[in-house]
């Protein structure tokens, strides 16, 4: 157990501890000396403009990209040394839809369940649970490539939950979706809150406002702010996340 150092007094289990995490691409600093703690069960949103370092941060935490410097512990496993252990407790849904296109929705679910090592009974249970949570029953026999963009994204996120991850990375989960599909996904993500730790990156300020327990704002690879919405509003003297975000990243120039 760790004390939540953000100071709200709750005792929470720490899920992720990031220490001086840095990523350089040639001479470009994608992530610059990042230090952050994320707690079990919280939904943490990383906000930032393009190139802020959000996706690189997620990729490093998910062991998809090696950091240039620093380390991060996921439930005390190092992203540098304990890749296999970390892969047991995480899953990811990338910006682009990540599904097997020519397989049906059902075949996609069974494929991922089998790949995560589930038994036949567990696969049936996973399928039922996922179908219920994401209302996939109506498209179960449809080929994934023939689904609408919204349904494909929904399936893509659903697949990330099959392995029952303790930590779920959602990289721009609603990018390119229409407003209805986005709201539907918000509902689904809201239902996941508290059941696992979710780290979400987004460009949509209203998304971060609606879903997050805490928010981190990044610019040029640096973390400029970490805290709750209320703390963000207090710090910037603004009343919504978008205005507060602009205040932080522009340094009050806009």
């Amino acid at each position, binding site marked *: 157990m760790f004390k939540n150092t953000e100071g709200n007094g709750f005792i929470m289990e720490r899920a992720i501890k990031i220490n001086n995490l840095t990523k350089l691409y040639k001479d470009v600093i994608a992530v610059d000396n990042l230090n952050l703690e994320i707690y079990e069960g919280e939904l943490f949103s990383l906000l930032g403009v393009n190139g802020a370092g959000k996706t690189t941060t997620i990729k490093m935490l998910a062991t998809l990209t090696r950091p240039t410097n620093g380390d991060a512990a996921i439930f005390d496993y190092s992203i540098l040394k304990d890749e296999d252990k970390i892969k047991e407790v995480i899953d990811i849904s990338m910006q682009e839809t990540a599904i097997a296109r*020519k397989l049906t929705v059902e075949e996609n679910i069974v494929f991922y369940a089998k790949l995560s090592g589930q038994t036949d009974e567990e696969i049936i249970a996973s399928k039922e649970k996922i179908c219920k949570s994401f209302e996939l029953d109506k498209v179960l026999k449809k080929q994934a490539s023939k689904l609408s963009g919204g349904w494909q994204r929904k399936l893509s996120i659903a697949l990330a939950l099959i392995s029952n991850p303790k930590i779920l990375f959602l990289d721009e989960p609603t990018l390119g979706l229409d407003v209805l599909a986005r709201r539907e996904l918000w509902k689904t993500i809201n239902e996941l809150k508290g059941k696992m730790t979710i780290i979400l990156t987004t460009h949509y300020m209203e998304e971060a406002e609606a879903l997050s327990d805490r928010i981190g704002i990044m610019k040029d690879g640096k973390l400029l702010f970490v805290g709750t919405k209320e703390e963000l509003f207090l710090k910037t003297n603004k009343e919504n996340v978008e205005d507060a975000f602009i205040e932080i990243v522009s340094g009050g120039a806009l």
Partner: protein
Amino acid sequence: MKKSLSRTIILTKRNFKEILRDPLSLVFTLGMPLFMEILFYFIFHNLTSQFEMKYLAPGIVVFAESFLSLFVGLLIALDRSTSFLTRLYVSKAKPYEFIFSYALSIVPIVIIQSLLFFLVGGIIDSSIFGIGMILAILISIIPSLFYIGIGILLGTICNEKSIGGISSIVIAGQSVLSGMWFPIEGLNEGIVALMDALPFRNATRLVQNIMNGINDSFQDFILPLIIVLAYTVVSFVVAIILFRRKMVSK
């Protein structure tokens, strides 16, 4: 070990379904070569020995295998472009499990290709039926591994837009440098030396020679076998190295 095998089989089944459900892959790997086998036989077999069925059928089998590089490559390039593979990298599957699954998923198509082109060839010219044909069907798996290795390599480094153009160089290489469509006797020595050093002609000769009988076991069988195997091993090793690099970008 057991878990690794199980994951490879799961990935293989998925890859096989994806390929099978792409009608274009079946047209190019089965339909078009079959049409060429029949057409070229009936037009040219009386004009040049090149197109007698005992040479044409094994030649067509290897030619059709060259299309596999396109379809394996396209599958991998598409998996990469949609982040499908990135997601799978977060599973416990290892680079070699991905590589073997892509390779294994193609093997049933290789066997179907061989059986189809030899059987149709045999129906047209029954003299090719025999133990040589059975041996040729078995040995034709070796050149297919070369093309699968090249396909995996190209799929790892190319995107889904460039893979078609680049793999068509491999297909053209097999077509032009295999010597199956024209007699090589009159060609420049340097060109022939190049053809002998590359895998394309060796792949065709390997299957043709095993089908029609071997006079000099080293020249007719061992040497082409070594050359094709060497290119196959190199293409797989490079593919695994590059695939591993793509899995965890530095």
